[in-house]
Each structure stands twice: as C-alpha cells, then as structure tokens.
C-alpha cells in the first residue's frame, strides 16, 4: 500500500517536524563522528582527521536542507514558513500593511456589494425551481406586460410552448381578521399559479385550477410566510379562519413557503387570492373586458425543447388571431419573452444597465487599487533590495524569493478581502431589511449567498497576484553583487513608465466618478426644486379607496363630497381638492386612448393620443397649485346630467388640436365613443416620472367619471404634527372604518425620486472611494520620487535652489499626472453623463457649478496627497544628508 505509507510519512513530516528535524541532526552528527573515527583509525592526526571528515561531509547544514527538500510535504511547510516571514515583515511596517488592507477592503467590499445586488436582482431574482426556463410575456411594441383577462385566457389555452401559463396582478385591499383592519398588498393569481411555478404550501394548501368556477367563486386566501409570521403570530390555527376582505368573507386556506415572495423580485405581497375573485378586490368585474389591460404579469416555463424564438412566433400567431377576431380591442398584438422578476424590460432593462455599469465601475476601482498597491509593492521591493540581494547571495533561488513576495501579496489581499467581505455583508444585510417606501412592500432582496463569498474570495486572490506581480521584473533583474557592494542605486528615470500611465488612468477614473456624482447630485437637487405642474410644498395627501370600505355606486361621490367639505373646515387648511390618482405619487393610473371628433373608426391604431386620465373635484387645481392657462375649471355643476367636459394640458392640446387656443371648446372622443368638450387648459406637468417627456393628460369631473380611489390634496401651512391627526379624526368622524393613509406630498414623492437618489448615492460612494485611491496613488508616487531623489535635492538646495524650484523638481511629475488625469476624466465624465440623464432628472454636466466643483475637488485631492512628501522635500537639510551618504 504505497499510498498509505506516503500519507503516513506526509503527516509525520507535518505534525512531528521538530522531532524529525532533531532526529536528522543527530544522524548527521553521528555520521560526521564516524567519519572522524574512520580517519583516526587510518592513522591521521586528530586535527587532520576532523578536517578531512568535514570536507567529505560537505557542510552539515546544506546536507540537512537537502534532506528536508527531498521530504514529502516540504512545499506546504515552506509556504507556512513564508507566511510566518511575511507576517513578520508586515508587522515591521504596519503603516504599509494598514494602507494596503484598507484599500483592498474597500475595493473588494465595493465589488462584493455590487455583485451581491447584481446576483440577487439579475442572476437569481426568484427562488423558484427551474427558474432558467421561466419567462414573462411582454408586448412587442412597448415595454409593458399588461394583458386583458380574456387575452390571457386565449394565450394560456392556445399556446403550444409553455407548460402552463400563470397570471398575477398586484392590488391593494382592506383586510380585517377581527382585530385592527389594515390595507394590505396582495396578488390576484390564476388558479394554476402555484402549480405552474412549482410552489408547495408551507401550511394548509394552495389554489389549483379546480378551484375556479367563474367570477367570485373562490374566496380563498393563501398568506405569505412573512405576513403569517407578523400578522398572525405564527398561529397554525390561522389556516381555516374566515376573514373580511373589503367586507367580503374569505377563508385562509394555507401559508406559502418562507422563500416564496411572489414573482416580482422586490415586491412582497401579504397574501394571494384567486384572480377570479378580482371584483371583490378591485370593485369592478374586469374578467370579461377584453379592451382593458390590467393583468400585471403572465409567465410560465417553456416546454422542454422549445426555443425562445419558437415560443415568440407561437405567441405572435395567437396575437394575429386575436387581432383578426377582436379588431376593436386588439389591433396590435405582438409579443416577446422577457426574463422574470423585474417586470420584463420595463424595469429589467434600466436595472440591468445600471447594475452592469456599477459592476464595471467597481471592477475598475479594484484594478486601480491593484495598480496602486502594485506600485507601493514595487517601492517596497526596491527598499528591500539589500535583503533580496543577500538572500540571492546565500543561495536562494529567484523563484523562492518571488514566492516569498507573492506570499506577502496574497496574505495582504486575503486580509483585505476578508475585511471587505465582512463590511459588505453588513451592508447587504442592511439593504435587504431596508424598505425605502413606507407605503409599498418594496425591498431589495439582496441577502448574500455563497456566490457572493466565492466572488469576493476570487477577487481578493486575483488582485493579490496582480499587484504581487508588479515587482517581479525588478526582482528578476536584481544583481546581488552590485547591490551588496554599493547599496541601492536610485535611477532617476525621465521616460514615462507603466506606473505613470496606470496612475494617470486612475486619476482620470476618479475624475469621471467625481464628475458624475456631482452631476447626479445637482440633478437631484434640481429635481427637488423642479416644476412638476403642481407645488408639493405644504401639500398633504390623505388617500383611501372607498370601495375597500364598502362604498358603491352613488355613495362614492356622496362620501367624497362630504370628505372635502369636512376637511375644508379644519383650522389652517387653505384649500382642498380631490383627484383619483395623484401625479408622481400613485402608480395606478393608466393611459386612455383619445380620438379626434372626426374619427369614425375607434380602433387603437387610429388614436390621436394616449393621455393620462384623472378624475378631479372642483378646487383640485387651486389646492395643488396647477396654473389654469385658459378657460374654466371643473365645477360641481359638471355632474352626471350635464354634458361631458374635460380640462386638458398643453401637450394634449398640441397633440390633438395643434395648439391650446385651437383646442378651447372643441370636442374629442374616448374609446367608447363618448364625446367630451374641452373647457379649460392647464399647464403641463410630470405624471409618471421626473425624466419623462411632456405627456398629454386630461382631467375630467369626478361626478362624470367616478373613481373610488380617492386622494384628498390638502394645502395648509400648519405644522404636520397637528395637521395629520386633525385630518384623521375629522375624516374618520364620517366613517371610523375608513382606511386612511396620510402623508406629506413631498414624502410620498420619494418613489419617483428614488432612482435619482440611488444613483447619486452609489456614485457618491464610488466617487469617494475613487478619490481615496487616487490620494494613495499620488501619495505613493510623490513619496517615492522624493525618497529616490533626496540626494539630488540636497545638492540642489546646497547650491542655492529656491523652495519653489525644489518643490517643482520633487513633485512636478505627480502634479503633471494629476492635471492630465483630471482633465481626461472631466471630459469622459461629461460624456458619461448622457447615460445618467435617463435616470437623474435634468442631469447635465454643462453646469458651471459642476465643472468648478470637479476642478476644486481634484485640486484639493492633489494637495492632500502631496502634502507630506512636499513637507519632506522642503525639510531636507543638505548638510546632514550629504554627510550621511
């Protein structure tokens, strides 16, 4: 059993190294003594006998070392001793070690965080079995996934590409389980939803297709694990209980497993109900309306062997069938597939682009850190050239010396990587419990997994080898004889080195980051002061859905009128208005197709515009501060019996009628043929997000187009701490069971500001890191050049050079690099900002403040980095220096 014997020897060598070594020592000693005895016996005099024996042995230390090298496991042992030596070396120079570890920790940490988010959102958005064959269906001509329910049924039943097609739609409802009713977020899901996704219940059961028997036939609830935990305190008895959902009785039939959060990566619903019961949730039966697209996502697993292209053409043939069969409702139906989890390409595309860009930036930062550490390492290797030369002279091979240097580099990178990973774990865990919007169950599910650890480790090791490799050439060229003889030879190079280019690139990168973060911050600031078409300052929103509270038909309008009336009586309230969906706050509004009065055929492709539709009360425009440009506002006389009227914005007027003046008094038609007269023009505003182009919008009377969704816009300069409770108590005097959500408009607008906030924040963090790296880089190069040229500078000073000249000589190179790098970076940053403008409102680098800010920041950075080397250069005392040498 040779393997067994070898393993035993290997272990013995490792574990009992000390005993093995003293054994060897003794063996060699006895060998020498026996040699001497032999010589004595041969008749040599004692001294001669010893000498001859020693010559024959040939150096007992060398023999021992040769034996050690022949042993099994010798490689491992020497690595361990390299590590010991490396740690000792690093301890001797704690400043260097600290700089290297901190730099690496930041760079690796940044990469780990970015990768963690990328991993969670893009690589593994849903924790579902066989997620790689799961696809969402989106429309071919727009980034939208909405389907009408009848269309979904046709897609589900007519396709030959999917193993079942599931549908789900997010909604809000009032859930009353006996104690404190609350507004919950839920998914309306098709009966096959859980079966298609392969989700097994944690408790009880889930729904199946067999539960669906027409509208409102399946009043069942499957709780999410999280809401079962928080709202029902892990009570197993919750299954089987009957609760009130919007005042309808529903039975809790089961609990979903903990890892299942629905099919949107960042949106956790409280529970699931069958989609056939949507009328009880939404207040309006939409199951048979083909013209209204409201089903949020349809998705399923591709059948084995079906390619994406095959599936797409299959879906499109269904699309053309739908076009032919229902020309009025579906006249442009084409489909494509999208990866699940991020709502098709609508969110998926920008999120993927942004994350890829961030990952790229983080990678560049790591590269820059490696370049920096590489030059620090090279400088250190130069300082240690005597040591290296000595080791070479004593017979160490160059490979052995290099292995020592690499061991140090890898040690540093592992320590840095560990610190960085730890930091990123804390950050990622923080991110994943963070809920940016109090009103929505939105969060970033970025809990780190093994992928993140593996990537961090890999990056740390790679960077260790990268920067460890920088001084290799230097070591290979070391001539021990010259160095031991004459000490370090400082060559003052004039040519541009690789190190210079690396540092220049790094400064440029830092300038790019500083520029783009400043552009982002300025854009953010501008978007806070921007013109939204209304004034959010001192505006408070109270929103509710009257349908959830059990109001139907004419009761809704009646209640809304009473709500406005009582709110107006609250002291300090200057004006109150009501709207069905608040621009930039609620996301529930959809477009409405508009036709000119002359269009006879009302099919979607003939539409003149796709306008946002808002139902408003009289007084809305005054309350929110939207300027009326022409005509009149809605009044309480524009009721059900009066002719239909609308107020439109400028963009609507331009698009449909050519200009605002031409639009006044004219008529347009809605999809159902209703003729509406334009009675007023208001200013344009922002409706969906801050970066959108001007969009057409119309405002109709809430009496003529009723909406149970209700936003009370209340203008008041009163302190919020008093105003909010006053509104709550006043409105709830009308109906104590009314679910009411009150918050200042500014705060509710966080949703639309979120992307630009995130962009500004992440760019700011990266910019800060880039700046720190540049500082260490410039510092390194400046300090190195001052050290190398101390003698020359001393002579110059002795010969009468002025302080300025000394500084120029010592730091000129670093400053030139800084200036060149900053200029390049600024230019690149200006180019990069075009990308930013899709995320951040009015992001433009052609802003004197940004330009000045970048120049100032880079100058400050340069001063910080060169401060210590400059002080050192100026404090040179030529007399002392020259005497020393």
């Amino acid at each position, binding site marked *: 059993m040779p393997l067994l014997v070898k393993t035993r020897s290997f272990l013995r060598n490792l574990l009992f190294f000390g005993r093995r070594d003293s054994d060897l020592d003794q063996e060699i000693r006895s060998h020498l003594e026996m040699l001497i005895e032999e010589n004595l016996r041969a008749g040599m005099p004692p001294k001669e006998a010893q000498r001859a024996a020693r010559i024959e042995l040939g150096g007992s230390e060398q*023999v021992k070392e040769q034996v050690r090298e022949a042993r099994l496991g010798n490689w491992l042992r020497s690595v361990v001793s390299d590590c010991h030596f490396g740690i000792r070396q690093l301890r001797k120079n704690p400043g260097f070690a600290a700089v290297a570890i901190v730099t690496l920790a930041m760079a690796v940490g940044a990469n780990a965080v970015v990768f963690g988010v990328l991993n969670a959102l893009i690589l593994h958005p849903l924790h579902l079995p066989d997620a790689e064959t799961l696809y969402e269906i989106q429309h071919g001509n727009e980034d939208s996934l909405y389907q009408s329910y009848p269309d979904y049924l046709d897609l589900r039943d007519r396709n030959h590409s999917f193993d079942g097609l599931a549908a789900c739609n997010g909604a809000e409802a009032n859930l009353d389980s006996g104690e404190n009713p609350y507004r919950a977020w839920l998914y309306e899901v098709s009966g096959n939803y859980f079966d298609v996704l392969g989700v097994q219940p944690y408790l009880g059961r889930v729904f199946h297709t067999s539960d669906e028997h027409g509208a409102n036939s399946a009043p069942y609830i499957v709780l999410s694990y999280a809401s079962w935990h928080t709202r029902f305190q892990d009570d197993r008895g919750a299954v089987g209980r009957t609760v009130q959902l919007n005042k309808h009785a529903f039975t809790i039939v089961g609990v979903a497993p903990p890892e299942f959060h629905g099919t949107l990566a960042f949106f956790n619903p409280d529970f699931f109900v069958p989609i056939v019961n949507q009328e009880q949730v939404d207040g309006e039966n939409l199951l048979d309306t083909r013209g209204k697209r409201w089903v949020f996502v349809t998705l399923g697993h591709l059948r084995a062997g079906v390619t994406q292209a095959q599936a797409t053409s299959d879906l499109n043939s269904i699309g053309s069938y739908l076009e032919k069969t229902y020309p009025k409702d579906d006249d442009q139906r084409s489909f494509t597939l999208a990866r699940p989890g991020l709502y098709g390409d609508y969110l998926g595309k920008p999120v993927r682009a942004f994350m890829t860009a961030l990952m790229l930036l983080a990678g560049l930062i790591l590269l820059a850190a490696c370049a920096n550490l590489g030059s620090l390492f090279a400088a250190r290797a130069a300082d240690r050239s005597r040591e290296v030369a000595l080791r070479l002279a004593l017979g160490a091979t160059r490979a052995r010396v290099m292995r020592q240097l690499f061991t140090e580099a890898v040690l540093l990178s592992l320590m840095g990587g560990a610190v960085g990973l730890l930091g990123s774990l804390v950050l990622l865990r923080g991110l994943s419990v963070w809920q940016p919007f109090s009103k929505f169950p939105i969060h970033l599910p970025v809990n780190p997994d093994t992928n993140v650890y593996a990537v961090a480790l890999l990056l740390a090791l790679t960077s260790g080898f990268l920067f460890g490799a920088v001084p290799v050439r230097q070591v290979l060229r070391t001539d021990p004889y010259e160095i031991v003889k004459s000490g370090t030879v400082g060559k003052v190079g004039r040519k541009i080195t690789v190190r210079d280019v690396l540092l220049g690139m790094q400064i440029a990168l830092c300038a790019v980051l500083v520029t783009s973060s400043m552009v982002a911050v300025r854009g953010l600031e501008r978007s806070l002061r921007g013109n939204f078409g209304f004034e959010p300052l001192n505006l408070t929103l109270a929103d509710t859905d009257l349908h959830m509270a059990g109001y139907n038909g004419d009761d809704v309008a009646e209640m809304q009128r009473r709500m406005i009336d009582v709110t107006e009586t609250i002291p300090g309230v200057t004006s109150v208005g009501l709207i069905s969906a608040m621009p930039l706050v609620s996301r529930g509004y959809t477009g409405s197709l508009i036709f000119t009065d002359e269009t006879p055929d009302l099919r979607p492709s003939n539409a003149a515009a796709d306008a946002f539709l808002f139902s408003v009360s009289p007084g809305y425009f005054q309350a929110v501060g939207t300027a009326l440009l022409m005509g009149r506002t809605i009044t309480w006389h524009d009721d059900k019996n009066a002719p239909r009227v609308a107020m439109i914005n400028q963009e609507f007027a331009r698009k449909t009628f050519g200009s605002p003046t031409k639009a006044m008094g004219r008529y347009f038609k809605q999809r159902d043929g209703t003729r509406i007269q334009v009675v007023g023009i208001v200013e344009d505003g922002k409706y969906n997000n801050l970066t959108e182009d001007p969009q057409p919008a119309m405002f109709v009377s809430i009496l003529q187009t009723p909406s149970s969704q209700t936003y009370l816009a209340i203008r008041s300069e009163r302190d919020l701490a008093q105003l909010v409770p006053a509104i709550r108590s006043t409105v709830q005097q009308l109906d104590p069971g009314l679910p009411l959500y009150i918050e200042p408009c500014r705060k509710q607008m966080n949703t639309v500001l979120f992307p630009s906030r995130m962009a500004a924040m992440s760019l700011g963090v990266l910019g800060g890191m880039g700046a720190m790296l540049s500082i260490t880089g410039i510092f390194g190069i400046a300090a190195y050049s001052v050290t190398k040229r101390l003698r020359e500078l001393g002579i110059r000073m002795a010969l009468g050079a002025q302080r300025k000249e000394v500084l120029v000589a010592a730091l000129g190179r670093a400053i030139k690099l800084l200036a060149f790098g900053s200029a390049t970076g600024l230019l690149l940053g200006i180019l990069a900002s075009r990308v930013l403008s899709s995320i951040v409102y009015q992001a433009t680098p052609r802003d004197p403040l940004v330009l000045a800010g970048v120049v100032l920041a880079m100058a400050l950075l340069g001063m910080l980095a060169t401060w210590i080397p400059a002080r050192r250069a100026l404090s040179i005392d030529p007399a002392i220096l020259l005497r020393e040498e």
Partner: protein
Amino acid sequence: MKTEQTAILQGTLDMLILRSLLAGEMHGLGVSRRIEQLTGGTFSVKPGSLFPALHRMEEEGWISAFWGDSENNRRAKYYRLTKAGRKQLEVETQKWGRISWAIARALEAS
C-alpha cells in the same frame, strides 16, 4: 581513497543503495562504504546525495529506519530493506539490465 572515482549515474543511486542493504541492516556511512566496495571503488556517494535518497526511500516504504549502536558503541541510525524494497530492487535491476544491454549493443555496433 581511490583516484578514479566517478559521480553516480543519474537514476542508479536508489538501486545501489537497495543492493547494498541486501547484505543486512547498516547505517549511512556503512551504505556509502558498501557502495564503494561493491563498485570496486568506481562510485562514491556524497552525503549530500546519500541522505536525501535514504530519507526519500524511507518515505516510499522501501527501507525502514531504526536507532541502534554502532560497532564503537555510538548511537547511529540504521536502515534495513523492507519487502517493498526487495520488490523495488528487482524492478530496478531488471530495468538496468535492459538499459546496459541496449547501451552495450549500441556501442558494439559498427
């Protein structure tokens, strides 16, 4: 000391050590002298090659080591052939036979 000593041929050291241990257990110096004797003084093994080889062969399991007393009552490390070592000697001897036959043939050919 003989004048015409040659460095041991690459790859034959193991075989010679195994062969010399065939006579019985012996210490490092004994092995070294035995090889000189066996080869009629043509080959001498320097300690710098002998000891690494002995230790390596011990790890391979061909020989085993133990501490004993030398002829002058000095503690010395002794080596002895194991079963695996005898087998290895056979293998190496056969191999060497083939090589020397081939070389001899090559040199005799005209």
